């Protein structure tokens, strides 16, 4: 996975609350056996008419936001199914960071596995950044993972929390299966003990 260190880019405003994974990538695109190529169907039913024409009002169809790399979103972004196709589609479109007051648990975790940084900030900070995002392509937001800050256009900087292990993996683009396999001895020991204590498993 690609590293995430710092990012300064166009942020698209999506103030709707409870944007779910069916909106992010509708089910008809889950039939792929690949991870790539889903960006063209990101937010498909909000972005395109049934016959495939762009819906001009949709934010990512507007000229200012076609190259957005950040989403500023309403509460509980990514709720719904566990489909990792949601972050795959965001990433393939070019989104590397989503900012909201809250995220659904599985989506949040899936982002970190794909080089996308989900940032949780208080309502007032999200409102400020949403205002910036509404200003269009000239209003760029900066995200710094190392220092755990998001900086608005006027220079206001907001600190955010991030799990230390997830941060480490994202900063370095690490594959966590490799990291876990370094602890194979612990897994082996656990299995030997469990075979005694819970042999029915």
């Amino acid at each position: 996975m690609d590293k995430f260190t710092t990012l300064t880019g166009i942020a698209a405003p999506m103030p709707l609350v409870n944007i779910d994974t069916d909106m992010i990538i509708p089910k008809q695109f889950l039939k792929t056996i690949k991870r790539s190529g889903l960006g063209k169907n990101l937010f498909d039913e909000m972005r395109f008419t049934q016959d495939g024409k762009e819906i001009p009002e949709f934010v990512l169809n507007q000229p200012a936001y076609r190259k957005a790399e950040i989403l500023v979103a309403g509460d509980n972004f990514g709720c719904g199914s566990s489909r990792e196709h949601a972050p795959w589609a965001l990433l393939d479109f070019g989104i590397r960071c989503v900012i909201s007051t809250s995220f659904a648990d599985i989506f949040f975790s899936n982002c970190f596995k794909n080089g996308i940084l989900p940032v949780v900030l208080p309502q007032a900070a999200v409102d400020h950044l949403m205002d910036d995002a509404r200003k269009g392509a000239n209003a760029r937001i900066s995200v710094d993972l190392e220092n755990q800050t998001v900086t608005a256009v006027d220079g206001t900087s907001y600190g955010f929390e991030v799990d230390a292990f997830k941060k480490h993996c994202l900063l370095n683009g690490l594959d966590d299966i490799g990291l876990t396999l370094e602890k194979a001895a612990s897994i082996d020991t656990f299995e030997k003990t469990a075979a005694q204590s819970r042999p029915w498993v």
Partner: protein
Amino acid sequence: MTGPNESCAAKSGPKTLYDKIWDAHVAHEDADGTCLLYIDRHLVHEVTSPQAFEGLRLAGRKVHAPGKTIAVPDHNVPTTEGRDKHIDNEESRIQVEALDKNARDFGINYYPVSDIRQGIVHIVGPEQGWTLPGMTVVCGDSHTATHGAFGSLAHGIGTSEVEHVLATQTLIQKKSKNMKVEITGHLRPGVTAKDITLSVIGATGTAGGTGYVIEYCGQAIRDLSMEGRMTVCNMAIEGGARAGLIAPDEKTFAYVMGRPHAPKGAQWEAALTWWKTLYTDEGAHFDKVVTLKGEDIAPVVTWGTSPEDVLPITGTVPAAADFTGGKVDAAQRALDYMGLTPGQKLTDIKIDTVFIGSCTNGRIEDLRAAAAILKGKKIKDGMRAMVVPGSGLVRAQAEEEGLAQIFIDAGFEWRLAGCSMCLAMNPDQLSPGERCAATSNRNFEGRQGRGGRTHLMSPAMAAAAAVTGHLTDVREMM
């Protein structure tokens, strides 16, 4: 017997059920609390696994514990006859064939569509005795929460985590917070497990459980059958929780005993001894507590496009102005999408489609409840109604009990097992503007087909709506 493995950092003092299961599965813990949680059962289906198996192949890795890995195609299999010979949709067919091949190549347990035991992964797991109390269970599907009904810690994971579990039989996890949802007293007639779980989400919101594992308790939960408990835990995810749990009791043990993969003989006795310790200790700490009175819960339906848009069937459609914050715009969008007018009585909402099935309500008890309403009745003229049993075995049992004939006589289509119109990946879909009374779990925009409108409810309520042609208070038909 020896106690299960304990984490070195396991907390002392009274523990919740979640604490106990967690502590028994920590294979490694870092100083910052990041743990390797050992996974006892890994369920796999065709949609979220192909990329994970591909990842294993590319890295030259094996499945660490194939005996603890169970695969079944369910999401996009057709529910019509002949599907074991040929699946028309090419992409669906490729996914199912990929699962066939991956199951064979990696030597994991597998129930193909030709097997009567095939069905929705969350129905097959418990039915075959793979799901047992005190286990950790994961699957690349958010409704893995279902298995929490057995007092097993069960949750959905993404495809990268599917690959991680396949390769290591562990997950990298940090512990969630503890939340207690207590349903006191007794349910009134016509009120079911579905009404409990929807009412909880209505009360807490779809983000109310974010960061928590919920333990459901209280008399009304104890009174539920295992099927009902699975319905409650199934929708813990719609409440935002990582998982839902119900402490195992005699009903749980009776359900599990004798199932194909349940322990037998001395191992059964040893397992039972441990399972009986799986309850929340007196005085254990919960970070959040929600209490509902069983008597206050009515048969409910959803009116909008979020599972939190829950109202008693006796209610009226709300206005956007009834809400605050970001929900005002979301409610207006939902009203527009659903084609509803504020103030309209819910029972005046006409429907044209009924879907009974899914991992939420596709078990035998659900079919019995719907059939009890439908017996001797016909569905409304022009209504499209289907029953999709949760597994081939549920289907066979329903046929044996005469339920299938009741559905068929009423005018329902009697389908083969699968996820079907819950997420509409197979040919079972709504067309734009069609309005469905559904026993499934999500009413999101486009969930059952682009432009389709979904109202969630219990199987008995869906059956009642099929007869009258509009959302209906099932109590009037009992």
